[in-house]
């Protein structure tokens, strides 16, 4: 038994050695990477990353972290939330499956985004084990999100294509800039929700892929390198850049989403818990869908 254990450990040892020997970053490619760094004709990704990471990313994120909620506070104070009657009829909007999927996504985002921020401002937390724990949480919740992102993408896909209403919705910013209650042109999902959908699914997938690339670091999938024409190290740099840029969009829309669900529309959060939306809410905020349902006689 001990012998097999030993053999197993020895083989792991060798596997790790072989892994290192096949490295795309620290082995044969290393000098090429060095030579390519900052050369004419190269993408200069290393310098770009250094410049952005050193000077801008954290600042912009901090601005978002502080600025976006600040805008919401102002909005809430001056324009106030939309209040709809909770006594009227309820319209069944979200199936059980879609709710489960949403909840998983919600939980993972609630973990992902703060942990992401903690990593970004790791120095404020003194680095070390706490931040590492946050980093591991970030990775673990990605697994949950990774499992449901495709189903989520599929179940809502048919409702998410661009519609004439969306343009109109965008022109008036969903009616959130006025206090008056009047029907807003929108189908089952309004343009804001659609944007969030695309950002959360496609953007989310980009986040997963770029995050995974950075997590696994020294993997060797020749196809990716051939397809993108990037060396492994440049692939990682692109990943880091995309992760930061796309992440910014996700974070902003996530904040908006939370604000809308929790504060801007009173009680809106219940609909994703119970599956039912207030009829009045649908009538005003999703007027096109309301009309369609009426026509079909479903109300």
């Amino acid at each position: 038994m001990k012998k097999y254990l030993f053999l197993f450990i020895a083989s792991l040892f060798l596997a790790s050695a072989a892994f290192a020997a096949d490295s795309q970053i620290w082995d044969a490619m290393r000098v090429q990477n060095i030579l390519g760094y900052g050369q004419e004709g190269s993408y200069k990704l290393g310098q770009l990353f250094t410049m952005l990471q050193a000077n801008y990313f954290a600042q912009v994120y901090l601005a978002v972290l502080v600025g976006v909620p600040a805008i919401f506070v102002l909005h809430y104070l001056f324009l106030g939330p939309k209040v709809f009657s909770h006594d009227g009829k309820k319209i069944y909007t979200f199936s059980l499956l879609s709710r489960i999927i949403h909840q998983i996504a919600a939980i993972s985002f609630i973990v992902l985004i703060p942990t992401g921020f903690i990593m970004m401002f790791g120095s404020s937390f003194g680095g070390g084990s706490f931040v590492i724990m946050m980093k591991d949480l970030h990775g673990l919740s990605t697994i949950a999100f990774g499992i449901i992102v495709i189903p989520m993408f599929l179940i809502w896909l048919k409702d998410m294509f661009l519609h004439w209403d969306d343009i109109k919705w965008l022109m008036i910013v969903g009616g959130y800039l006025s206090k008056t209650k009047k029907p807003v042109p929108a189908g089952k999902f309004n343009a804001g929700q659609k944007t969030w959908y695309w950002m959360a699914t496609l953007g989310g997938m980009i986040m997963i892929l770029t995050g995974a690339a950075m997590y696994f670091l020294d993997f060797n999938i020749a196809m990716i390198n051939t397809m993108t024409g990037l060396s492994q190290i440049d692939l990682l740099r692109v990943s880091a850049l995309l992760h930061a840029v796309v992440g910014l969009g996700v974070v902003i829309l996530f904040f908006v989403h939370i604000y809308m669900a929790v504060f801007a529309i009173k009680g809106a959060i219940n609909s994703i818990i119970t599956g039912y939306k207030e009829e009045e809410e649908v009538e005003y905020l999703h007027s096109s869908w309301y009309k369609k349902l009426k026509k079909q006689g479903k109300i």
Partner: protein
Amino acid sequence: MSSEMSRMKFYCDDDRCIECDGCTVACAEAHELPTGVSRRKVVTLNEGIEGKEFSTSVACMHCTDAPCEQVCPVDCFYIREDGIVLHDKDICIGCGYCLYACPFGAPQFPRDGAFGTKGAMDKCTMCAGGPQETNSVHERELYGQNLIAEGKVPVCAAMCSTKALIVGDAQDVANIYRARIASKGKGVQSAPYGWSKAYGN
């Protein structure tokens, strides 16, 4: 180390480097590194092609304006007064950003966590240990020996079989390099890789 004059630098003379891997192993052995991490690596390019093959030894170049230090989200890097770029492994979270910023591919990440997670970053310390108590057991375990504190030369350069790898104050290193070029009677070649980056200012 008195401050103003010294800026410690490495330089590998590829006319002399023969890929004996002495530096790699000397480093690994002196600091008892896990396998899979080589702080110093010898790379040969154009192997077997007459007139084009050359080898060179790379590790952290202890850049003057170290990009790794700029991008680290947890600020675990610090630059000593003599120019040696070090980091604190107790603070490092193994995010990999320093690697993306580094022109030399110096930072490495031993996969010591569960499921092959990346551990704290490891790189050449120019044999100067880390922020822990000098020559303490804790320092030795995390960073390896602290030869600089003992007043000794980093082990890779000291053990270089052909004296291709030299280390010391940037000015001295440049002088040795120039002396070698001069004795060969050749004009000064284009500066070696990353020279401008690592030796900047």
